[in-house]
């Protein structure tokens, strides 16, 4: 059976329209800074956990973006690629994986810093932490695989399978605190009933969540454009895209 060739664009002259400052990224940086200043200085300190609870605004917002936007988009675009074999879709999957991995790295680094003063340990091998680390490793493997295969169509096809696998773990991570005994608290925000937090804290989380979504979109767009320009350069040099 022959493999359908991926649809690739012909090399064109470099685009100069995108050479200016990235205003969306600048807006995202300002929004994140404002949301975090609001969370740290203008949101009440939780009585039991103390200031460490404010890691929540960073950790949970980054986790939601990494899981549902980053890895969710990775799985979706990977599946669409296997169907359509469009180069642009593969490039979007690659971008979502890389940016999602950055957000998930922040989650895996800030989680232990929050866990130590509250749980008394940096790390525990419970379902949520283990599944999250496992998914992070799969996405790291996805990006490593992409660098290891030269043939463009083969690289896109193999990595799409891995991308779907990473995405399949997202619902399990979401449900892990209800399916297994874990130190992680039950859902506080993303649950059918009202959030189990004071209104001021929910509002601060919403600002932070919106800002991190904007940061994700800005970084994703920049990463996608980098991929476009890199592929255009390779095509102009006559290399494998």
């Amino acid at each position: 059976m022959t493999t359908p060739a991926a649809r690739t664009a012909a090399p064109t002259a470099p685009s100069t329209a995108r050479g200016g400052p990235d205003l969306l990224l600048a807006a995202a940086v300002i929004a994140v800074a404002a949301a975090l200043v609001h969370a740290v200085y203008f949101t009440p300190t939780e009585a039991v956990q103390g200031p460490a609870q404010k890691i929540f605004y960073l950790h949970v917002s980054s986790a939601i973006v990494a899981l549902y936007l980053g890895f969710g988009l990775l799985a979706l675009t990977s599946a669409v690629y296997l169907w359509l074999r469009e180069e642009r879709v593969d490039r979007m999957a690659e971008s979502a994986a890389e940016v999602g991995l950055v957000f998930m790295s922040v989650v895996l680094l800030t989680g232990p810093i929050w866990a130590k003063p509250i749980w008394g340990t940096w790390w525990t091998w419970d379902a949520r932490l283990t599944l999250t680390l496992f998914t992070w490793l799969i996405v790291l493997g996805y990006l490593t695989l992409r660098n290891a295969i030269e043939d463009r169509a083969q690289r896109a096809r193999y990595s799409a399978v891995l991308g779907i696998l990473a995405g399949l773990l997202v619902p399990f991570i979401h449900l892990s605190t209800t399916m297994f005994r874990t130190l992680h608290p039950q859902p506080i925000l993303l649950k059918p009933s009202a959030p189990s937090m004071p209104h001021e804290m929910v509002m601060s989380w919403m600002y932070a969540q919106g800002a991190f979504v904007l940061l994700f979109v800005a970084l994703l767009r920049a990463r996608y454009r980098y991929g476009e320009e890199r592929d255009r350069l390779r095509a102009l040099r006559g290399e494998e895209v």
Partner: protein
Amino acid sequence: MPPDNVAFMRAAYTVALVVYALYAVTLWRRRARVRKELQRLSD
């Protein structure tokens, strides 16, 4: 009275900001390098 663990909060915020900033700068430098090369080839 809430526990005094503000150092953990500061550490987490610092780590996160460093990771995001490093990635943004790395991406910006990669894009700049590719654009420069594209420009060189088009001249």
